[in-house]
């Protein structure tokens, strides 16, 4: 199982992980729309990790489910955490003057979406996109 961890500490890191995920997805021969969706979700979540979480890591793994292949990404930070996950997942809700579509939008772009957060401890978001 191919797996690698990347640190997200600066704005250029956000660009870097985007490109890494793009490369992985194209290597696995994802179709172009699926690639774009996954990379866009990566961008959203990586930015969240940086801006709200104060920096963190992204762990990328190639996963298999029988014959299907997919990419699983885990974004982890040790920032302030999310107070109200339900609220945060709503379209339009933003705490940083954004569009409020980062979390809810990413969920729509991937097949599996999982979020764990504890106030004061940090946030971990795991997403998976199958081929």
């Amino acid at each position, binding site marked *: 199982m191919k797996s690698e961890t990347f640190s997200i500490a600066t704005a250029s890191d956000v660009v870097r992980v985007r490109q890494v995920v793009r490369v992985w997805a194209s290597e696995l021969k994802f179709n172009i*729309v699926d690639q*774009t969706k996954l990379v866009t979700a990566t*961008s959203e979540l990586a930015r969240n990790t940086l801006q709200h979480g104060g920096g963190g890591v992204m762990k990328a793994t190639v996963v298999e489910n029988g014959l299907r292949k997919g990419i699983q990404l885990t974004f982890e930070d040790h920032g302030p955490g999310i107070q109200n996950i339900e609220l945060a997942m709503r379209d339009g809700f933003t705490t940083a003057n*954004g569009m409020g*579509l980062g979390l809810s*939008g990413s969920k729509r*772009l991937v097949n599996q979406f999982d979020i764990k957060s504890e106030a004061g401890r940090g946030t971990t978001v795991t997403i998976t996109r199958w081929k």
Partner: protein
Amino acid sequence: MDRIPILKLGECLLVTIQVDMHDELALSLQEDLTDQIARHASKGVLIDISSLEIVDSFIGRMLANIAAMSRVLDAQTVLTGMQPAVAITLVELGMSLPGIKTALNVERGMELLKAYIERDSELEEASGLEE
């Protein structure tokens, strides 16, 4: 730090975004554009994103901001060349960028801009005549 070049084409400004932008670059583009519009009293801005493979919520917001700011400065904005995969992803993300005019390519974009500019000047003349 490299900045995205802005070309002057008569009464219009032409911007071609070809690189994967990081956040700072996007913000500086915003500043530069508004600066240039004011300086040249341009009537139109054409932003070509045919090489942009990723448009996430941040970049989407930036584009919307540019359009809004230009309008305030009395200039029309047209977005051209969005890739199909990007369009599908944006829609899925929940961003429909209302109020932004779009065109298939730079050629059509310029035609559109010219038409708008003409229409606007006609309207101005008309209202001027009334007075």
